[in-house]
């Protein structure tokens, strides 16, 4: 029977390996405050993470509203995504401290964090976070979606990184972004829905819970590939690429 004064994390404490104290103290860096960022922050706060820095320079647009729990119609066109999430996340847990950083990730010092969750929408940002996280030995969990497909890749100080799984098609995609906008990253609209976003965000935060609880051994170390059309999840081995610049290559 539920008691009115029961600990909010009572049920989570029944998952024996979870270290709620470590989760409460962890300093999370969430990069990207769009669809994935909304879901990731929601899951982090519900899971007991209290110190979250949220990086995004963008303003809320109407197309965000079908996938973003923390955004409202009145925000469209004027409110920064990171500010909206930061101000409303405390309604989920008053102990949560979500600090917005209205910036591009390229201008953010990542070193002051224990874990990084990437919720971005372009390869350029992923490569930036990936290389800095590896250099700083900060665990990095990257999530991505495309329509009903998505993936999660966890990068630790040993093992493969994101760039190990990249090739010329990734370079061409980056060039397409740059060629459209000169010196800026231009991102074309990508098919997206909330159900796939929610699945990927849940997987990302679950990986974070394992790492912060000292159970990196339980992590999906390589690439977890989700296909929502088929309803399948597949764990793919990613070999370390000796030519990867983060692994001693050029």
């Amino acid at each position, binding site marked *: 029977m539920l008691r009115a004064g029961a600990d909010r994390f009572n049920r989570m404490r029944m998952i024996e390996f979870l270290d709620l104290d470590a989760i409460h103290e962890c300093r999370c860096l969430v990069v*990207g*405050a*769009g*669809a*994935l*960022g909304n879901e990731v922050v929601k899951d982090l706060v519900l899971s007991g993470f209290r110190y979250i820095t949220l990086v*995004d320079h*963008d303003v809320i647009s109407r*197309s*965000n509203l079908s996938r973003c729990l923390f955004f409202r119609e009145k925000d469209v066109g004027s409110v920064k995504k990171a500010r909206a999430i930061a101000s409303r996340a405390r309604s989920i847990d008053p102990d949560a401290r979500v600090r917005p950083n209205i910036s591009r990730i390229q201008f953010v010092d990542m070193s002051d964090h224990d874990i990084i969750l*990437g*919720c*971005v*929408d*372009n*390869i350029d940002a992923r490569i930036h976070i990936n290389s800095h996280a590896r250099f700083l030995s900060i665990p990095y969990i990257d*999530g*991505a*979606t*495309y329509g009903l*497909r*998505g*993936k999660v890749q966890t990068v630790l100080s040993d093992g493969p990184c994101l760039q*190990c*799984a*990249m*090739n*010329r*098609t*990734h370079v*061409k*995609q980056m060039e*397409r972004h740059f060629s459209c906008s000169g010196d800026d990253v231009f*991102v*074309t*609209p*990508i*098919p*997206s829905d909330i159900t796939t*976003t929610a699945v*990927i965000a849940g997987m990302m935060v679950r990986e974070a819970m394992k790492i912060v609880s000292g159970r990196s051994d339980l992590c999906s170390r*390589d*690439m977890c*590939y989700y*296909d929502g059309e088929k309803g399948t999840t*597949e*764990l*793919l*081995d*990613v*070999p370390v*690429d*000796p*030519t990867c610049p983060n692994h001693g*290559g050029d």
Partner: protein
Amino acid sequence: MTLVITVKNVANGATVRMETEPEERIGEIIESAAEYWKKDPGAYVLKKGKTLLSASSTIDESGIIGNDILELIPDPEGGST
């Protein structure tokens, strides 16, 4: 020695037979397959069974043999917009 492999496009189930050489790099196979299907702009990866193939590795180094079936899958990029 030429090897004939099959690349399967997981997005639509289509397949294509490709002639390769043992020293050909996986990255070239990925680009060729993506161009063959004139796929949507985006990034793709190639897998054999449960293993992603490293773009810098050759067919030989990847342990690929004749009549192997490789799968081309889109590498999702979205999340923030």
